């Protein structure tokens, strides 16, 4: 048995009256990449800080390297062996110092001998591809680069245990994959133990073992497949003809029904794939018919939501019988016509054109700095375009302010006002009459499920409710067009699903046009139509399905390689000229056009299994952007 690096037993932490963590028990073994997964406020940070010896705790025992951390002096004695990277993009780094100065400072702080520090610095900067930017001030780095620099600084004293708190939050998918890749390599190579947290459920496969956390408690822990086994079941998706009715029929029977563009995705607990597919088909056929049935194994997010089943009642977002106009035929609600914006010499957006129709959910994707936010600012009339223009419901964008709803990244609520004060404020700003104001207040409270919390300060709401309140404020004046700029960061999966249910109803039943930007590629799946931005331009404009098909056509299908010798298989693949390999926990993902050849290689190598996987939007995004970056670099 491996030695334990961290052992927590009945660990608890409270801040004043609020119990942040209660009764957490877990163990991290030597050389293990252990994940803490959960939304904001789940108690991940408190636990991690206590492990790193930078936070006192109230109850239970916590041992790190076999040392009881209860006393300050004991905590102090193990700090030389630990590296901590706290939460926040580059927050632990020094913005005014250059990349190299930051690394040097951490080396000196940790008393690393000069020669050793220099060698390690060169190696780490090389691995993270930061060596070319060593003179650049930290604050001018992109989010992904900041996090990589944070990792370098955390590793400079060769700790035995690293504690990384949400290292990938706020980082675009390409940089995120990059980060995990580097981390996995370093952990494997140096025999490190790592405790890493994330709010992204889809990153769970990166960990050898993990704990799912929610509201200060551990819901489940173990290897990914062990957790998946806790709520066995299948996921069925189909494209129904009458999406709203079909959704209502399914939601009456299953707790987890999601609308993804024209599709519906249902988690069927306890049934194998075929059985689940036919169970769903029976219900859907009763409400019209459907095509393109597909099924697969449940994902971690489904399990997580299922584990929280108590708090999730079947939703009834689609009870209305109204048959909406099919998006393809409806009239255009948002039109961007050759929009362009320059700041000095810098071209933020150039020649961007697209159309969003009534009742359509349109996703705008792109890495940080691709121009998404600038484009939205021009369409909402905050920023005048340098050239080109646009129309909202036929009206020029210079005069549309009272017709649109807008929800910005940080859910811009007034945290020191109560729920109803926030709603009334926006109702007043949009000039609603007294009677209308009262009616819309009730509507928003109901929509957001906040009827009993009308007089609570917004600051006291959990993120999910804050997000719905912000949505309500954006909708208070019944706009026909709604802009959402990264609307779901930091929200737990249950809240996120409830949020998308509301958006679904808005688009399908009320015919509102929605323009969404997001970093969560799992959310991009919800959109009817996507536009991918790169360096200020739109480089792809299609449905999610079409984008996946196109990628498969260009680069091949996605395969997962698992088994005990999976990691050793990576160099074999590289030698065979099959690039694009990424490490997920103990397995590999690879895109390959020649499945037969892959299978042959695998059986030659032995000890590995090859399995086809469904492409996700993240795969599409990462591959497309990497190719574009390579092209731009040349």
């Amino acid at each position, binding site marked *: 048995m491996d030695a334990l690096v961290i052992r927590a037993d009945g660990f608890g932490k409270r801040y004043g009256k609020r119990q942040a963590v209660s009764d957490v028990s877990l163990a991290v073994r030597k050389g293990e990449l252990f994940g803490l997964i959960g939304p904001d406020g789940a108690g991940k940070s408190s636990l991690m800080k206590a492990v790193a010896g930078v936070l006192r705790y109230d109850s239970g025992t916590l041992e790190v390297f076999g040392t009881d951390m209860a006393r300050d002096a004991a905590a102090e004695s193990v700090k030389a062996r630990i590296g901590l990277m706290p939460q926040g993009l580059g927050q632990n780094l020094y913005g005014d110092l250059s990349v190299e100065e930051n690394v040097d400072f951490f080396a000196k702080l940790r008393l690393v001998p000069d020669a050793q520090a220099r060698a390690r610095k060169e190696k780490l900067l090389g691995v993270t591809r930061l060596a070319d930017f060593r003179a650049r001030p930290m604050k001018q780095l992109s989010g992904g680069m900041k996090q990589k620099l944070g990792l370098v600084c955390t590793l400079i004293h060769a700790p035995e245990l690293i504690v990384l708190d949400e290292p990938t939050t706020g980082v675009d998918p390409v940089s995120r994959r990059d980060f995990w890749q580097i981390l996995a390599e370093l952990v494997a190579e140096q025999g490190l133990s790592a405790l890493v947290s994330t709010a992204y459920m889809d990153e769970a496969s990166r960990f050898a073992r993990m704990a799912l956390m929610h509201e200060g408690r551990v819901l489940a822990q173990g290897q990914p497949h062990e957790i998946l086994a806790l709520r066995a079941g299948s996921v069925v998706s189909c494209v129904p003809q009458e999406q709203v009715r079909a959704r209502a029929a399914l939601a009456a029977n299953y707790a987890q029904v999601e609308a993804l563009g024209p599709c519906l995705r249902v988690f069927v607990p306890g049934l194998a794939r075929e059985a689940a597919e036919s169970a769903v088909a029976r219900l859907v056929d009763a409400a019209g018919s459907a095509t393109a049935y597909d099924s697969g194994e449940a994902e971690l997010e489904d399990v997580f939501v299922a584990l929280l089943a108590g708090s999730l009642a079947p939703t009834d977002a689609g009870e209305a019988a109204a048959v909406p106009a099919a998006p393809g035929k409806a009239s255009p609600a948002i039109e961007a016509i050759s929009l362009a914006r320059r700041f000095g010499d810098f071209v933020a957006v150039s020649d961007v054109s697209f159309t969003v129709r009534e009742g359509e959910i349109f996703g705008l994707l792109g890495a940080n700095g691709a121009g998404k936010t600038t484009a939205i600012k021009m369409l909402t*009339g905050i920023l*005048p375009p340098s050239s080109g223009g646009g129309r909202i419901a036929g009206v020029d964008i210079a005069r549309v302010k009272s017709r649109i709803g*807008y929800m910005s990244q*940080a859910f811009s609520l007034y945290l020191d*006002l109560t729920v109803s004060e926030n709603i009334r404020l926006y109702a*007043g*700003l949009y000039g609603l009459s007294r009677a209308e104001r009262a009616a819309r207040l009730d509507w928003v409270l109901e929509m957001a499920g906040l009827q009993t919390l009308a007089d609570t300060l917004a600051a006291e709401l959990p993120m999910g409710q804050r997000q719905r309140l912000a949505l309500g404020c954006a909708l208070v004046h019944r706009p026909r067009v709604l*802009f959402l700029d990264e609307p779901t960061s930091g929200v737990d999966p249950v809240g996120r699903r409830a949020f998308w249910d509301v958006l679904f109803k808005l688009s399908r039943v009320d015919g509102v046009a929605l323009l969404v930007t997001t970093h969560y590629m799992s959310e991009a799946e919800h959109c009817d139509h996507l536009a991918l931005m790169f360096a200020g331009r739109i480089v792809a404009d299609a449905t999610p399905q079409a984008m996946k098909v196109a990628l498969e056509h260009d680069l091949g299908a996605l395969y997962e390689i698992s088994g005990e010798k999976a990691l050793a298989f990576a160099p074999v693949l590289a030698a065979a000229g099959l690039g694009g390999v990424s490490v997920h926990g103990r397995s590999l993902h690879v895109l390959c056009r020649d499945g037969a050849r892959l299978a042959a290689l695998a059986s030659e190598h032995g000890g590995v299994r090859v399995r086809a996987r469904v492409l996700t939007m993240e795969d599409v995004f990462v591959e497309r952007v990497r190719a574009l970056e390579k092209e731009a670099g040349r």
Partner: protein
Amino acid sequence: MNALSLWCLQLKVMFGKELRQLGRDRVLLAFIVYAFTVDIFLAASGVSLQLKLASTYVEDVDHSSASRELASRFLPPYFQLQGELASERAADAALSSGRAMLVLTVPAGFGEDLARGEPTHVQLQVDTSNAVLGFLAASYAEQIVARFGLETVDAGKTPLPVIENRTRVWFNPNQEDSWFMGISELLNVITIFSVLLPAAAAVREKERGTIEQLLVSPLTPLQILLPKVLSMTLVILAGTALALFGVLRPCFGVPMAGSVPAFFALTALYVFTSAGFGLLAATVARNLAQAGMLTILILAPMLFLSGAWTPPEAMPEWLAVFTHFSPLYYFINISFGLLLKGQTVAALWPSVLGMMALGMAAFAAGLLRFRRQFG
């Protein structure tokens, strides 16, 4: 709903929002109350530039009745006789250690000379490391000695053609420092908050991202900024009322000779116009801390070039010019005019005009920068 009533409704809800937010910020409220009460009380009761109980020692070499008589005339409230010193060295020590502010030396033979009608002298050593008080002490001492001399020579003889001066000090007959200090501290506090509060409110919106939400709504930049300034003006007026009626009048008897409503109206105008400087700072600062530092850079010259302590005529000419660019300079004239002198607004119009011109310029610049930044 027509355009005007819509405009008013939008202004009203924004105004209510600003007041509510301020009301929920306990720390800031506590600081505001502290500044308008305790701070002003301390300044009014603590600072006095009058000579009070100056520590005086006598080195009496003569030991005559005349020398004792002269020494006994150094009385409170101006002087406090602390005792005798035996030698010149003791006198030096007392002065340089700061124990003594004044040492009066009466030479041997002083009483005899005086009795014979021969001119004589005494020596006063004054510690002028505080120049103002040193000067005052010396001039009071001169008067005591002169009167003592005249009385010994001329007691009860014929009247002489001397000049008898009656001094009338207007507006503050007893020269109460507390009136001046209290009012000028109040004006300082008003100035600080009228710059700081709108800056903080605007930067907070920027910091939390709520500004974007307002910008996509059909509000104009003026409608975003105006309610902030209006609500802060209201809060500052409330603070001013607290200071005037809760501290300055009951504790120090500051007269309110002129029109109190006019004072509040002009204070509102002043707050409104100095807010322009705060808005300027807010357009430059990225966060609350920066806004705080910037307002310090703006406030320090504004406060110390206002002429409250040093009149412009006593400043070097190049610096006196800047006085006219401190809106506080005009506001000081207005406030003292209304609170102490009992002047009418009509008599104060040049100051009102100067204040308005400066304030409008700052406000316009702040609004313009804000518009350019977010327009």
